[in-house]
């Protein structure tokens, strides 16, 4: 097994990242670092540039300019060196519906070069409590079961870096809480790094040790949830989010380095 990426360097490093689509700037001079072993959240409204940033880090979107390094690898030039140690989950990118959960996991285990796929899938089935539906076609599962199947796919290679796009979107509170707890345990046990894009404030407040606030493609603030609450004098991140979204209390903010 590859050693977890530590060594003091950030697991993800982005410098002056810009992505333009014609006249529209989706990501505007974004610079940030994600500490290894952390859960970091990209928080922002629709069109803030969260998914665009994740797509660049996954190597499926070419930026207009800037640099992005994942696990010390220049992802724009050498993405295949990093991709086996990463994975991705999103409710908007699905697994084939006709294939059973086990079949889907077998396909992705092979794609990611998992040495003993059957054992790995069995372990995931047990950990993620998928035993009763692992043989069923993925398209017949409930939303909660689908989420667990997606999570199993995202964890099939025990990634050191997990990029998640709204991991608990459209889940009921109980399932959402279960997923968050599982991810927190995974990070703690694996010393993995999670970068998640979300506009679920409760989720971010609970999970993230670093919050990157995006607006219109720009990084407008960053810090721990507590730091942001203190800085904006608010009770919860939702209020901070609204302050930023509506350009309130800008005078109190310090420029983002």
């Amino acid at each position: 097994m590859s050693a977890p990426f530590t060594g003091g360097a950030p697991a993800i490093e982005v410098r002056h990242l810009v992505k333009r689509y014609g006249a529209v700037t989706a990501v505007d001079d974004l610079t940030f670092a994600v500490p290894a072993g952390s859960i970091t959240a990209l928080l922002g409204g629709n069109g803030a540039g969260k998914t665009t940033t994740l797509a660049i880090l996954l190597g499926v979107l070419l930026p207009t300019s800037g640099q992005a390094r994942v696990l010390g690898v220049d992802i724009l030039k050498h993405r295949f060196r990093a991709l086996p140690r990463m994975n991705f989950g999103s409710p908007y990118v699905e697994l084939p519906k006709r294939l059973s959960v086990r079949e889907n996991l077998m396909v992705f285990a092979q794609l990611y070069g998992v040495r003993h796929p059957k054992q790995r899938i069995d372990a995931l089935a047990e950990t993620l409590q998928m035993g009763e539906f692992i043989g069923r076609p993925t398209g017949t599962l409930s939303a909660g079961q689908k989420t667990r199947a997606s999570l199993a796919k995202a964890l099939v290679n025990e990634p050191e870096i997990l990029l998640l796009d709204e991991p608990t979107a459209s889940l009921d509170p109980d399932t959402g809480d279960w997923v968050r707890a599982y991810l927190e345990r995974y990070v703690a046990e694996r010393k993995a790094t999670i970068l998640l894009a979300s506009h679920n404030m409760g989720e971010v407040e609970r999970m993230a040790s670093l919050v990157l606030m995006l607006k219109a493609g720009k990084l407008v603030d960053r810090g721990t949830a507590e730091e942001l609450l203190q800085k904006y004098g608010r009770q919860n991140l939702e209020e901070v989010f609204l302050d930023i979204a509506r350009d309130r209390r800008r005078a109190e903010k310090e420029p983002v380095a």
Partner: protein
Amino acid sequence: MPDVIAHSTVALPPEREWGFSFRRMNAIVLRHFYLLRSSWARVLELAYWPVINMTLWGFMTVFLVGQSSLFAQATGLLLAAILLWDVLFRSQLGLGLAFLEEVWSRNLGHILVSPIRPYEYVAALFVVALMRVLIGVGPAALLAWGLYDYSIFTLGLPLIAFFVNLVVLGWAIGLAINGLILRFGLGAESMAWMALFILAPICGIYYPLAVLPEWLRAVAYTIPASYVFEGMRAVLIDKVFRVDYLAIAALLNVVYFAGGVAAFLYCFKAARRRGLILQIGE
């Protein structure tokens, strides 16, 4: 909760930038094997049209053999043409459908953020397209043998050359169309079904190129399939294997294949620039 880490079964090999992994390629083939295994309707659809075509043209052949000295002399003329055309069409369509299955299921993003290289993915699509050709054309060939006492294998060894050339041409055209689907989304889906039929009147499936007007014949000479069908008639009517036709077809196929790969890679890069990969299928 059991300890996920303590019982780790994962051991990732060091990654080379441009290696070829049969394992990753097989993963995609496996995905399509699972799909076909779970869907009898898809398997039936693969064989349905070739079998219907064969039935129709088989009886037409039976009728024509009694009416025409040409067909009496070369009874397999139409049946061989039908089967070889289906090899070409199913190869192109198979490649298109293998790709479209990922788009329809909105799974393409998952695949393309995995460590699979684009050329491994394309190689896997080739294998899947070949599987689809064999599943589609195989029953029609058996029907021709059982119902009309015609075996495509009477073409002898040239059959292999014809088959390979048509499969490769199908891959080349299919790859270019997949590129268009990647670039323009499901709006370009109908290309997968229609594109090849533009060649059908030109490449002399059922008649010699000599019947075409001169300007159209010039176009036909740029299509590898034209040489295959002319070669097929040479074997069946003149009992001659035209190696020169085969050589030209193969050379043209090299050009077509390179063009197909270049078109796909160009569109793939355009899709990466425009951020289309994670969105495709929506």
